[in-house]
């Protein structure tokens, strides 16, 4: 009978960080300056959003701290600035820096939560469609087609406008953040559903799925534990782009007056609120949050591009 041929001493497993340092992902990251800068900026944004209440010199939500006499002060490098307000103030006398920090926090939160909702719906629907196939697949994918034929903005505008008209602006102001997450989340799930379905169709004919069925596993376990982890890399890529898209959608809706109320401004509603003052010389109220928004979206898209290149096995250069 056979005797073991190899008697190798396998070294103990290195730590998770040490293993991560050896991955292709990490290597290509250290060689790609754009990715490094983008990631650095993104971390900066994330930290700023997370610790906004600690960093911000003022609390823009607190009406007591606002003095209307301080309104429309320019940023510090311009004449007539007040050194107490680093980036100037808006039309209501709120500190721009603080407002922008809080705005970034709200924008990022809406973006990430909406994408989580999209991902949840999309993965659930795409996985079922791809795995079960047949009529389930046709039905779910036609639903996705119908959903896609309404543009996100149109759905959002109709739903938010009806909600505002039906329940009044006050209730709307309280629930705005949840409404935006729901609307953007529900409007964009087909992106995920289609991506997941395509990967599942490719994965489900591989032998490990047959092997899992032979081991007597149920459909649910095979779908979630065996197939889903093998479809994650395209999901990661579209997630970065979708977060950027969700932030843009939120900003556009806020700009149109259907998003966050002025009392709790997101980046979009800040841009919108400054828009009427742009010709009276107070450009910073619109331009500064605009720059913050553009850089945030650009960074997310660059990261997405880089991830797509790295995770695409066809472009793998070793």
């Amino acid at each position, binding site marked *: 009978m056979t005797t073991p041929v190899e008697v190798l001493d396998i070294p103990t497993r290195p730590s998770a960080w040490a293993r991560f340092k050896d991955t292709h992902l990490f290597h290509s990251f250290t060689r790609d300056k754009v990715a490094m800068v983008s990631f650095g900026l993104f971390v900066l944004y994330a930290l700023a959003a997370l610790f906004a209440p600690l960093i911000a010199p003022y609390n823009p939500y607190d009406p007591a701290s606002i003095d209307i006499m301080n309104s429309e002060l320019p940023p510090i490098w311009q004449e007539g600035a007040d050194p107490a307000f680093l980036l100037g103030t808006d039309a209501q006398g709120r500190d721009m820096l603080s407002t922008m920090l809080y705005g970034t926090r709200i924008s990022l939160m809406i973006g990430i939560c909406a994408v989580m909702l999209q991902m949840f719906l999309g993965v659930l629907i795409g996985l079922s469609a791809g795995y079960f196939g047949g009529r389930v697949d046709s039905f779910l994918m036609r639903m996705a087609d119908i959903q896609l034929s309404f543009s996100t903005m149109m759905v959002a505008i109709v739903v938010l406008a009806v909600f505002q008209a039906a329940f009044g602006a006050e209730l709307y102001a309280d629930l705005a953040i949840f409404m935006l997450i729901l609307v953007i989340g529900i409007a964009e799930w087909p992106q995920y559903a289609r991506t997941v379905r395509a990967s599942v169709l490719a994965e489900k004919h591989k032998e490990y799925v047959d092997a*899992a069925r032979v081991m007597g596993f149920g459909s649910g376990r095979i779908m979630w534990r065996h197939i889903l982890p093998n479809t994650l890399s395209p999901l990661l890529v579209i997630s970065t782009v979708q977060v950027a898209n969700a932030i843009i959608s939120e900003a556009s809706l806020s700009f149109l007056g259907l998003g966050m109320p002025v009392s709790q401004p997101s980046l979009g509603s800040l841009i919108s609120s400054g828009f009427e003052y742009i010709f009276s010389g107070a450009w910073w109220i619109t331009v500064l949050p605009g720059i913050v928004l553009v850089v945030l979206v650009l960074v997310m898209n660059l990261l997405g591009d880089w991830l797509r290149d790295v995770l695409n096995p066809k472009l793998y250069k070793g």
Partner: protein
Amino acid sequence: MALLEVENLEVTFGLRQGAVKALRDVSFTVERGERVGIVGESGAGKSVAAFSILNLISRPGYISGGQIRFEGQDLSKLSSDAMREIRGNRIAMIFQDPMMTLNPVLTLGQQMVECLKAHRKISTQEARLIAVEKLRQVHIPSPEKRIDQYPHELSGGMRQRVIIAIALLLDPVLIIADEPTTALDVTIQAEIMELLLELCESNNVGLVLITHDLGVVSQVTQKAIVMYAGRVIEQGPTKEIINDAQHPYTQGLINALPQQTLPGQRLNQIPGSMPSLQNIPAGCAFNPRCEFVMDVCKQTLPGFTRSGGCQVACHMVREMKEKAAQEAS
């Protein structure tokens, strides 16, 4: 009672061009601890037969007739939950390509523990101990360390060992091995086959070995089944089939072995190729390629004739037997 009895099994694939019968009238039995080989060219229906035992033929295929009895239970009448309990637990399956059969994103331990916990109520710790023990049984060195590795960290032969360990995990009574060594190189093939043989013998596990390698069949199995175009054409004790094949197709397969020719000589082959299942010739499906073809072969389907310990579906063999019987009387 035999462990597995397959009786007149018929599997149909409902294709757009019409229904195609991938298996017709397939019958065989496997006893407890018996090793049975199923041989045939690609497309003869070997793998379909294996999958239909586990009731895992994917659409558009379905079992359209016959019975599969496992330990006396008719598998086609079982609920899907009861069937799931049999899969993996009582009947295990080993696949062709070890590179593809293990899930690339889970460690060996995760896959093995999951499999154990799906069928038995045990803790993760206990499951891990069983997994390590099974890895040791298939001669994997330092299994405690290997168990935390991912499939890509193992060589092909190692992976096939792991797959055998997974198949043995729940102490099944029957293993179906679908060409378990085709994807491996020859030296590893022999090792894996020996390992499989050893484990089946020591645990008294039945084995259905699907292969197109007659050498493997003659080494490992006690009974052989030769399939052609979805039908069994010859079955019986392996020794008799290898040493004294009756059906012209089986003879052709054996003559095609490289050992049958001298160095430098052209390898023997059976001319032509297997008919597609959509237009199987009338009569005996092998008649266009058979060198002994007679008129009756083109018209009627041959029934089984007993010849020694074998059953052969061939008109020529039947006529020869009848003649011999007449002469004897």
